[in-house]
């Protein structure tokens, strides 16, 4: 019972995450969807804790639950969307959506198949206990990996994010200039 506890907790958390993820897309009210998404994020963060990756869990909470979801909520509230004013999608849009979603599903299935194939020897031994022994997720080890083995991709991503930020600032500025000329 005790040895299997991580397994039970994992299935419980996975159930919560999937349940709330389904609620995100079925909820009528956009605000409710946002809040369900926050809960999904928390369930995923708890899964990281189960893998002994506390830093990742905390970052998940800060970045997604704390910042991104707050901005989502913020935007949705600002637009004051509600069930009535939601635009009805045309059939073409729905068809495109189905194709994109299906492709994504295919991609995920392929990735899952590959990862299961890679992890076969690990999966055959006691499944959920292996991660508990590893210290990979601890912040020191993560720091070493990020700044030693993956320093180039890490810096490249930071440049990508910087360029996105500058882009956002430029877009924000442009609007202001237009406004002033309209005045």
């Amino acid at each position, binding site marked *: 019972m005790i040895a299997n506890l991580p397994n039970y907790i994992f299935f419980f958390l996975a159930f919560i995450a999937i349940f709330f993820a389904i609620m995100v897309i079925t909820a009528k*009210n956009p*605000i*409710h969807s946002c*809040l369900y998404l*926050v809960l999904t994020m928390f369930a995923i963060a708890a899964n990281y804790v189960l893998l002994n990756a*506390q*830093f990742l869990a*905390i*970052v998940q*909470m*800060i970045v997604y*639950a*704390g*910042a991104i*979801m*707050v*901005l989502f*909520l*913020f935007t949705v*509230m*600002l637009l004051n969307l509600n069930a009535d004013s939601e635009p009805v999608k045309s059939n073409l849009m729905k068809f495109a959506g189905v194709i994109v979603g299906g492709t994504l599903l295919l991609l995920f299935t392929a990735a899952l198949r590959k990862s299961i194939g890679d992890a076969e020897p690990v999966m055959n031994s006691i499944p959920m206990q292996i991660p508990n022994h590893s210290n990979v997720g*601890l*912040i020191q080890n993560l720091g070493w990996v990020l700044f030693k083995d993956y320093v180039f991709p890490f810096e490249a991503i930071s440049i990508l994010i910087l360029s996105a930020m500058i882009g956002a600032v430029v877009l924000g500025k442009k609007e202001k200039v237009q406004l002033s000329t309209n005045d």
Partner: protein
Amino acid sequence: MWSISNIANWVNEWLGKNFSAAWVTVFEMVIAGILVISLFAVLGLILVIMERKVSAWMQIRLGPNRVGPKGLLQSAADTVKLLVKEAMTPNGADKFLFNLAPYLAIVVSMLLMAPIAFAKDFMLWDLNIGVLYVSAISSVSVISILMAGWASNNKYSLMGAMRSGAQIVSYELSAGLAILSIVVLTGSLNMNDIIRSQADGWWIFKGHFPVWISFIIFLIAITAETNRAPFDLAEAESELTAGFHTEYSGMKFALFFLAEYVNVFIVCAIGATLFLGGWMPFHIGHWEGFNHIMDFIPSSLWFFGKTFFLIFLIMWFRWTFPRLRIDQLLNLEWKYLLPIGMINLLLVTAMAILKWHF
């Protein structure tokens, strides 16, 4: 010598003798829960009366002076009043979210209690990423405010919630950078390690100039994060009646109020831990005799003394500065505090590498 950690150890031993290991864990969790809840209640009572007395003192008034000796029981009387008042839910409100929001606010503040070291060897959860945990959980508190503001179905509430969202999300960055500067100097995210690193002097003395800058940034950021004047745009009585909790009454309002005051306590406790050494007594380098004398003052007194000093500072701000406008508030953060914080973090890093601190 009497200390809180001795009492905790004694309780642990006594339970260990009389019950099995599983029951000891259960009992200790219950005791910890009761302690946290009672600390909440006591803090609420003390901080409210403290705020009223401090504001009265600053405005040369008497403040509450009828209930109890010198009016000290006023906040207890107010609590009873709030408890027996009817808690209304407006008709157009989203009932579930409206009622959930105050509890979420309280739960978030309770979770924040976990990694705080109240005295030597006395904390609920010695987490190896304590500092990050605090910033992660405190970032959730804004969701309760947004929830309350939106679910009230009131334009003042919504406006207050929006302001609060913008404010907390942006000032979190500055608070995080200020916290990071101490993490860089200590090399650890663990609260206990941070406190131990201050055994030969608090960081505010050891780290001199760059740490002073981050301390000031931290003070400004936490004042904004807890929605207190001069950054109380989220409630701004004169513009938005009461902001996000306009529609709340009775105990639900009291829970928001309590959460706000406890949050002030928590952020001040974090500030005291990072910059003023937490429970660490006032030590100067290698003056063994002096340090030994300082050790006679109990560590819990040091912790609460420093924390209440910071709380007093924040109350002082409230009665000193006029409220900012929302654009001034965001300008202050994004155009001044954030760049200064980033450059300061670089300075602190250079200082930590070159060992310029004492």
